[in-house]
């Protein structure tokens, strides 16, 4: 009974050591991966900053104004002026399409018939 217990203990120790060994390598791998991702994030951040700076540079008011002037023929952009403000009530309602009558039926005769006590066809 006692030797059984010893053998079992030794086996458990070996199994635990094996497990710990694997866990160790798995942790190291995960850390390396995390570092890689971290690096990617900081690269992406740097790229984002660069793009933001570029966006701000391309959208600087001087450049937009020059572009609006160069492309005036195509775009016709002017500075916003006070008279361009409007009220919602000033916007015209959309005109609804009038229903198109495709096969007109003559109704005058029918009414006349009814007046004379006649019947519908």
């Amino acid at each position, binding site marked *: 009974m006692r030797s059984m217990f010893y053998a079992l203990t030794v086996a458990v120790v070996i199994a635990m050591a094996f497990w710990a060994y694997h866990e160790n390598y798995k942790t190291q791998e995960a*850390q390396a991966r*995390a*570092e890689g991702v*971290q*690096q990617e*994030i*900081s690269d992406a*951040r*740097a790229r984002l*900053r*660069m793009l*933001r*700076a570029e*966006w*701000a*540079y391309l*959208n*600087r*008011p*001087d450049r937009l*104004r020059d572009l609006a002037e160069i492309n005036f023929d195509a775009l016709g952009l002017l*500075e*916003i*002026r*006070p*008279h*361009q*403000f409007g009220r919602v009530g000033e916007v015209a309602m959309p005109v609804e399409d009038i229903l198109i009558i495709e096969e007109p039926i003559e109704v005058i005769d029918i009414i006349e018939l009814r007046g004379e006590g006649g019947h519908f066809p």
Partner: protein
Amino acid sequence: MIRTPLRPLARILQARDRGENPDTIERENIRARHEEMRDKSRRRAEGRLFVLGLFFLFAFATIGARMGTLANSEPVEPRAGAAGAQILAQRADIVDRKGRILATNFETHSLYAQPQQMIEPERAADALVKIFPDLERDRLVKDFTGKRKFLWIKRKISPEQKQAVHDIGEPGLLFGPREMRLYPNGALAAHILGGASFGEEGVNSAEVIGVAGVEKQFDARLRDPARGHEPLTLSIDLSVQAAVERVLHGGMTIMNARGAAAVLMDVETGELIALASLPDFDPNDRPLPPSEGLPSDSLIFNRAVQGLYELGSTFKIFTMAQALDLGLVNPSTMINTQGPLRWGKFKIRDFHNYGPELSATKVIVKSSNIGTARVAQMIGVKRQQEFLGRLGLLEPTSLELFEAPNAKPLTPKKWSELSLMTISYGHGLSSSPLHLAAGYATLANGGYKVEPTLLRQPRNQRGAQVISQEAAAMSLRMLREVVTDGTASLGEVTGYAVGGKTGTADKPKTHGGGYYEDKVIATFASVFPAHDPKYVLVVTLDEPSENSGDEPRRTAGWTAVPVAAEIIRRVAPLMGLRPEIEPLAPTGITEVSQLAE
């Protein structure tokens, strides 16, 4: 210790008498003695065990506590921390009120040389001069072949230049990463932002430090690594600032002015929506302070904040507002304007002769120096001084700009009766256009003090009450009349009910000795819409002269006012201000019935 005998004679004799075996007594005594010895040794052993137990408990507790602290503390070098991100975001961005970037960082490289590693120093020098024409070949050759072990060649180079240097193939030419401050909008808002340069420099990195403006004022905040990711939000609106600078530049050119400044301020929050000073510079390449000439002529001089000028008649409304507040006059009180007004050797004159007397409103509308001086005499030196102090016109503004605390208004050394009169119409006291804007904002904010600020404010300011709401409202009605019937008639912008006051002050000579005949500072301080004030705009032109007529016109009504009107026309829609039909002024009858209630 007294040993009890094993065979006490008395008991043995008694036992013998009774015929018992006396040996039992001896055995009994031996047993008792052994029991005693056993108890004693057990107590000792138990004591030792207790001490040992305590020792182990202590040892385990120590180890346990140590393990606990190790488990709970931050590892010294976090392997999975966001270390890389912080290094990149070295200095926080600066953005405008809508989050558009005003200043950000840009990664570039610096170029340095280690001459002892060079193989062909002369060829490298030749090639470098081809890439950077501003370098001197002889100097480079001398440096490369001399005893120097290290030298900087360029602080900042572009990626193309880096590739070109790389293509030289010289192992002694090395690159270091550099963070560079970039102002993508160029010269826009240059005086607000200031500029940045390198502080401590190393091969692998360099400190970026602010040298002026907001960059210097908030240097510690911008460099704080814990707040590197949150940008500094200013109250400036990029598109409004651009429009103001554009119109101001146009106006400055048309009016042949040397310089110009504009301050646009939100009345309720004190936020500066635009702050312009021309001529300006590119903060990406900030010029050095001038070594000769006047500092106030340099490009880096902020006329709106640092420039102290006598702002002329724009001050009259402060005198009138105080008189209204004190109940000394009301808008229709008649004031003696018979001129000239003599004070000792000094004479006060008006631009035109306005007859024997004018109502208080007309004194402002016609801009009568004599009338204002008479009102000031009613107020007195002490009260005027105290009032201007409460308006903030005697101390530097609290604006968050590095240059602001040095702009302390110039006041007369001795505030005499004559100073009282000249200051009442804006002479003898020099202040910045920003001071003037803050003073007008206080009038427009119902008399509550407004401090100008460059940071986005979450809520309205409500400072100390400087004058009563009624006096403030009456002053605004006077300002409105200046535009409808007075000196600022060109300032009318349909739909925005501009109210304001012009001011034309002769420029004092640089080296003392009176004033120039033909050089003026023309100022227009305005509030719009006058019936429900939202914004204050101050436009100042330095030495303007409008030459379209027969003779040059220099008064503010002809120079600063049309420029300000155009700014309002352009900027008000940008700020979402809808043009409105001005409500009619209350008629005399309603006023009487209100009083009767």
